[in-house]
């Protein structure tokens, strides 16, 4: 028996699930994205005019965003110190998220009181930045392998647009307002692009800890909900609506519901299940036995 020594990086403490950010954090990301995305989609679809869809989004979207903040505040150890969160705008995306959220709500409120295209345009920018800030909050979590990925902010923006688009579809079809083929076509293209981005995220790196962390997102159950119901079916339903305008209403309503469910599920799984703390590694030598 002889031995050979090899020094290489080895896992000393395995990855373990993060436990500090639970359902309240998920609620913040889901509701914030939904509210922000809904407002953006509604205003863009209306060409910055004051449409009934914009009015509904203007009343509900800020409530969703604030509900998300309220949920996550309840998770904090010292929620009464909440206003202090605004003090590190230069470095912290969490500070920026709160400020942008407040600005968004203020601009939408201003638009409700004094309707102006300028207010709507500014609120669209704020809503987009809110979704981006939420993405960067997750991106800057360096201790969580599946979150510390450059494409995550893009995913959050796309997710906000998709879930917001879903809410928009539900309201528009529910109130019997027809959607133009162009709007539906753009929506289908957006869902398809988001699907590509999501797929790219799942294979972002071959690093073992990342592959293990995102494995639950690729598992059959999650894939059915996220990939199938959240991306695939809405695209098919959108194409069906374009092909058969007579049945477009209920078809698009179903697509809208699926978009919301798919994105909410994806965020919940990303935070709660794929949120694995980075394994601790050390380079050490290990003697390897060889038969002589």
């Amino acid at each position, binding site marked *: 028996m002889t031995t050979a020594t090899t020094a290489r990086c080895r896992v000393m403490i395995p990855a*373990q699930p993060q436990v500090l950010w639970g359902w309240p954090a998920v609620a913040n990301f889901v509701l914030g994205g939904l509210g922000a995305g809904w407002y953006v989609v509604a205003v863009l679809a209306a060409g910055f005019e004051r449409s009934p869809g914009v009015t509904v989004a203007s009343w509900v979207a800020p409530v969703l965003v604030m509900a998300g903040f309220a949920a996550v505040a309840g998770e904090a150890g010292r929620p009464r110190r909440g206003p202090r969160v605004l003090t590190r705008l230069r470095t912290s995306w969490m500070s920026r998220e709160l400020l942008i959220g407040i600005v968004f709500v203020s601009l939408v409120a201003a638009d409700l009181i004094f309707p102006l295209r300028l207010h709507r345009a500014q609120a669209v920018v704020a809503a987009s930045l809110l979704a981006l800030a939420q993405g960067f909050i997750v991106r800057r*979590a360096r201790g969580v392998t599946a979150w510390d990925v450059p494409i995550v902010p893009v995913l959050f923006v796309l997710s906000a647009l998709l879930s917001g688009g879903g809410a928009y579809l539900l309201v528009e079809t529910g109130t019997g307002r027809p959607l133009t083929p162009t709007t539906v076509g753009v929506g289908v293209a957006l869902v398809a692009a988001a699907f590509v981005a999501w797929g790219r995220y799942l294979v972002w790196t071959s690093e073992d800890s990342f592959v293990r962390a995102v494995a639950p997102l690729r598992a059959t159950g999650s894939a059915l909900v996220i990939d199938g119901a959240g991306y695939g079916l809405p695209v098919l339903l959108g194409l069906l609506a374009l092909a058969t305008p007579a049945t477009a209403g209920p078809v698009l309503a179903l697509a809208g519901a699926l978009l919301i469910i798919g994105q909410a599920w994806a965020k919940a799984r990303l935070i709660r299940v794929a949120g694995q703390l980075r394994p601790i590694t050390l380079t050490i030598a290990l003697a390897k036995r060889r038969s002589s």
Partner: protein
Amino acid sequence: MTRWGMAVDVRRCVGCQTCTIACKQEHGLPAETAWRFVADCEVGEYPDVRRLFLPMQCMHCAQPPCVPVCPTGASRQREDGIVWVHDDACVGCGYCAMACPYQARHLVHTGSGYFETPTPSEAARAHPERHGVMTKCTFCKERVDGGVGRGLRPGVDPDATPMCALACIAGAIVFGDLDDPDSRVARLAADPRAQVLMPECGTEPRVYYLAD
């Protein structure tokens, strides 16, 4: 310029957890919280297996990812490199714990003790200001600062040295000024066998590990 750091010789560590207990006692930590621990690691696959003990704590990184993400400014870094949390400013959001690659931050949910009611010792060392906020290893900055103020040398004089290094029965933990070339910690950090945990994270830890 002083730059506090630590060197841990994992070849010496026997996994006794004395440093863990000394830290908990020094800082009056509640039952569910430990700012440091010794991981009992088994690496490799049979028959090529090795067991070793890895003392874990805050790495007091030169580029700490926990500091910029903090939304309240409670997470701070001193000029001498010590990373700490201002209890009165922390909102307890847990973001710093998500940003730390070394699992070194802990949210103190309650001040629970080991029994139904606090023992006299627990009551005497309770820190209600830490409830609901993030906590972490401070390199025993009170001991270090107090010692420096009295003209002592941290890492050399026991009264100015962090409790974990002082309590280690195997002399595996060495603390001192990394910028002092004559200090033991600086010499150990310069050893070719010295390494930091996960250098790919770019955090430039100031806790060095000596392993084979």
